[in-house]
């Protein structure tokens, strides 16, 4: 019985010990001049915007309120993108699968469509679900999209016709990562492998970057 109680106590302490070890590692890495995260740090940081768009369930989604305090990856793109956007989403999905349940539960991934004409809410939902059913898809009016882009200090997406019909959309291609302090200090460029996200997410959860 005493052993059980002791074991239980130790088990309860494990997350605390793990967090402590993580912070100790952060301090050692800082002292050694090593990067804490493999993403690129940006300054000034982007404050988490308090803006509302429409989620794929058709309901308003207040980005600031719904993701407050959470590690949040957010990127802009379109479902007809064959290259950068699906690779981002696949690598993020691959990374999330490698987290502990507690880490996974603390992370939100948001995709904002820059092609609201073709990206209906069902199309957006189906596309995102092919990567991870928990990914949040947001669609808005031109004004809502412009406000979101301005909040991230990125140029507006633009439509460009392709030969033979159809069009592509030029858009910001980095992934912004918010930490629990409700600021995005870190961005991830296209082609960031899942392993790098796996390396960074525990640190982002600790607010280390």
């Amino acid at each position, binding site marked *: 019985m005493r052993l059980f109680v002791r074991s239980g106590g130790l088990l309860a302490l494990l997350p605390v010990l793990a967090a402590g070890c993580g912070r100790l590692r952060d301090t050692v890495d800082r002292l050694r001049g090593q990067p804490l995260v493999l993403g690129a740090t940006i300054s000034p940081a982007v404050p988490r915007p308090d803006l509302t768009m429409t989620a794929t369930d058709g309901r308003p989604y207040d980005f600031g309120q719904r993701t407050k305090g959470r590690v949040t990856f957010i990127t802009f793109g379109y479902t007809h993108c*064959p*290259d950068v956007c*699906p690779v981002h989403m696949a690598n993020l999905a691959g990374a999330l699968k490698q987290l502990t349940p507690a880490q996974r539960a603390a992370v939100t991934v948001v995709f904002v469509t820059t092609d609201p004409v073709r990206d209906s809410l069902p199309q957006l939902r189906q596309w995102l679900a092919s990567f991870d059913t928990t990914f949040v898809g947001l669609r808005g009016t031109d004004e809502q999209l412009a406000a979101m882009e301005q909040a991230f200090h990125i140029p507006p997406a633009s439509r460009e016709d392709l030969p033979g019909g159809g069009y592509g959309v030029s858009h910001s291609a980095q992934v912004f990562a918010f930490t629990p302090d409700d600021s995005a200090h870190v961005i991830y460029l296209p082609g960031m492998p899942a392993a790098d996200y796996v390396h960074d997410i525990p640190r982002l959860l600790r607010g280390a970057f």
Partner: protein
Amino acid sequence: MKRRIGIALAAAAAAFGGCRVVPVDQTGTVGWTRGYLVKPAAGSPAALYLWITNPTAHGDTATAVRLAAADSAQIHRTMAMGNGMEHMTPVVALPIPAHDTARFAPGGLHVMVFGLDSALARGDSAQVTVTFARAGDVTGWAHVITYADVDSLLLR
């Protein structure tokens, strides 16, 4: 089995259509050493990545790509604009210098594939024909993969 049928079909096409059939790992002429066709999500266009190599002493130019299992295909290049923006532009002629390789990869060169047969599944092979200005039509194969495979196959 599906691959064997495909190869037989390609051989027949070569015999009757006049194009040369080149296996994926061919050497001695312009062709590709790696070919990955990424199955699209939710009916979106697919992406095809090739490592086109030119072991000959003469430069060549890729001018068109077509797939037996798709409506159309275009070579595109994704370019970083320097302000965080990515811009996709069509490539109507892709030079492949002598003894050089053009490596298609996410965030760079890719073939945008429209109307891909949705029956193609991960692990299948898809027949691809690239038209070169000098070598003419070269037909080979691309492995069908998913976006989850891109990280390990094309980003490392």
